[in-house]
């Protein structure tokens, strides 16, 4: 319970659509399968409720297009 309180909780995926080039790295390496590419090949958080805010997408994004905002 104490541990759960210490974990960062997701507020939002801030995805810069102008910078995203749709390489799919964030989609492929998300451990919880949260992200998808939409019909215009831009990353979107399709299942944000599954996000554990590990920020691996943010760290691996070659275009600095993802910010994981936590509470």
């Amino acid at each position, binding site marked *: 319970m104490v541990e759960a309180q210490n974990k960062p909780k997701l507020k939002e995926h801030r995805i810069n659509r*102008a*910078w995203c*080039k*749709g*390489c*799919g*790295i964030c989609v*492929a*390496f998300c451990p919880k399968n949260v992200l998808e590419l939409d019909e215009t090949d831009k990353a979107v958080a399709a299942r944000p409720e599954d996000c554990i805010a590990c920020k*691996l997408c943010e*760290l*691996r*994004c*070659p*275009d*600095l*297009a993802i910010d994981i905002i936590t509470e």
Partner: protein
Amino acid sequence: MAVKDFIRERFFPHIWCAGCGHGIVLNSLLRAVESLGMSKNEIVMVSGIGCSSRISGYLDFHTLHTIHGRALAFATGVKLSRPELNLIVPMGDGDALAIGGNHFIHAARRNIDITAIVMNNRIYGMTGGQFSPLSGCGIMATTAPYATVDQGFDVVELSRAAGATFVARSTTYHVQQLTKLLREAILHEGFSVVEVLTQCPTYFGRRNKQGGAVEMMNWFKDHTTPVGSKAKAENPDLIERGIFVQKDLPEYCKAYDQVIERAQKGK
């Protein structure tokens, strides 16, 4: 400071291709600098020519975009005149070890306090996919339509032999390790080399049928192992990542200061 405060946002989105590993190196470097709590004015980034060298334009440090292979020579000049600044020199594999091969080994030999980052995608991307001294044997490239016969350098062994006092390697898949290694390399007093295996999906990946960025990063995951692991003993083909050299030897600018001191005493 937030990570975005270290970049020149007006130049984004950057010119690198979709999935290019250089952007991940940029990302990791930003986080390393942020974690060190350094100010933008304490850092000088010097780069040469190539896809990788475009990185200096995107970062809001003191930046010099210089000539092909000579980034370390420029950086040596900056460091000697302003030793209090932190020098970071990102280079491509060709820039660092073909065109700039001599500058590289001599900067390492002098142990001048510079952080060299070799962004190794095993190809000359900007000029259209020619093979580089790190391509290795059996690689398809624009200039090797029947595959290369050249052996590649091992950056770690080369740097160690040339006298670098900090040598590490990681990949764009292992971003957390990469950030940590870049951080340690910047903190190290002396010549530090961080080799980063990075993907060029456009030229290297496509020609060598390695797939796109995701497949190439999975290749890094499957073909690398921590230094000294049991897996390496069982499969010598695995590429090791981690810190290979970390030792204290006299730093060049400090040694030079002593020369100045001796000379000014006169006889």
